[in-house]
């Protein structure tokens, strides 16, 4: 629930996204097409980062957007922005596939190879805003110490638990948790204004 003394100040883009989700509830296919146009490239980048396969990533994005279409009534703006909702759905499906494969390390290598060839220039106002948001996030991620960024990316993009990270890297579990917490705190502080715009 929103505190009474802190009125919601969602960005216009976020409000447009929520309107589109409302139209999904009314089975408006054009709304789905517009959500696709606004988020598909970001969702595809996420799925490809997790899976390392362009083709599998496209299938995951398709499945995720069909889930958005069929479960639009479940979207709760008090719990997340639309983009985060779609990100979490896409990530969840991609991680499920990844775990089924049980070849996390191989995927990581493949993703690192593919990343250098998939840059796309932004187009349109929405894309520019998204691009600027991405730039700020990348800048803040780059400012993180390597060990803190590593544990955060392993957790989010590879779906590894803290314990799995500790086992894989040979770092004590407590150290992994501490690094993750520090990374979250720094990013949250640096990106607070961007994050607030999503609420």
């Amino acid at each position, binding site marked *: 629930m929103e505190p009474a003394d802190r009125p919601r100040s969602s960005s216009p883009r976020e409000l447009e996204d929520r309107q589109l989700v409302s139209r999904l509830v009314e089975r408006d296919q054009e709304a789905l097409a517009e959500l696709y146009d606004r988020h598909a490239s970001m969702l595809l*980048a996420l799925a490809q980062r997790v899976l390392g396969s362009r083709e599998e990533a496209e299938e995951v994005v398709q*499945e995720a957007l069909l889930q958005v279409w069929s479960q639009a009534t479940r979207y709760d703006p008090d719990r997340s922005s639309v983009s985060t909702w779609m990100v979490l759905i896409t990530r969840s499906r991609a991680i499920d596939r990844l775990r089924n494969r049980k070849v996390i390390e191989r995927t990581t290598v493949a993703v690192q190879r593919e990343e250098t060839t998939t840059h796309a220039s932004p187009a349109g106002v929405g894309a520019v805003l998204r691009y600027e948001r991405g730039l700020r996030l990348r800048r803040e991620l780059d400012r993180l110490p390597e060990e803190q960024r590593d544990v955060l990316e392993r957790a989010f993009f590879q*779906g590894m638990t803290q314990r799995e990270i500790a086992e894989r890297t040979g770092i004590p579990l407590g150290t992994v948790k501490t690094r993750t917490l520090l990374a*979250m705190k720094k990013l949250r502080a640096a990106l607070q204004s961007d994050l607030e715009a999503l609420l």
Partner: protein
Amino acid sequence: MSGLRSGSHDELILELLGELEGDERESIDAPSDLDGIDRERLRRLDVELLGSLPFALEPVEPRPELRAELLAAVAGEGQSGVASFVRPPRERPLRRLGWALPLAATLAVAGLALAGLLFGQLQAQKRTVADLQAELESVRGSITQVAALRETMLEAKRQLALVGTRGVEVCPLRPRDAGPAAGVEGPWGVLYVAPDHQHWYLSVHGLEPTPEGHAYQLWFVADGRPVSAGTFSVEPGDPVELSSETMPAGTSAVLVTLEPTGGVAEPRGPEVLFGDGAEAMRVL
């Protein structure tokens, strides 16, 4: 994660930050750096922070067909009641290649392996055939040798029979100018003549090896005229043994001359051995 059911955000955070001890949890929930933000809002910020991470990636533009396929799947919902992604038929060369290339590579490797196996088997069979042929030739050679040995044995047996025949006559051969005692050092021979005066056996020793372009020739002297009984050669150290079932009637002497290869009609070369029938003696 299906939609945003109650608790799904917490699950995500726990998955990322999970298993935190009390003081660790407090360190991230502590509002000191967020100016009095309440815990629920803090949690919401964490969720949005995680949801923002993909924006740090370079966007990846989907295939143009992907959008149409998505909308086609949604459009089919009216008929089935459930939207499902049914990929329409389309060219997917990369996927086909992705499937076909490993298969082709596998088949190629299997083919090469099979070819290699067959080639190896063929080579082994060729070696076996060659070995068998060599063995067959060896057996054939052995058979020939056995046959030759058998013939030699039969001849020796005939010669022995002739030599042991009652009434055989024995005629010594030696150089004409040598005395009776000279045979110990020079060439010499013994002619055995059966009582029928037809079968004979000649044993010669001590002849020099046949010179190049020449041959030794045996003569019987009958009625005062030499009649050729054939030519022969001498290898170093080998004795000469000759035999026949015919001898000219009235033979009174025997001689060996050295003639050109192939022999001559009448003796012209040097005489190396001579045997006088008058010196022959009947044994047994």
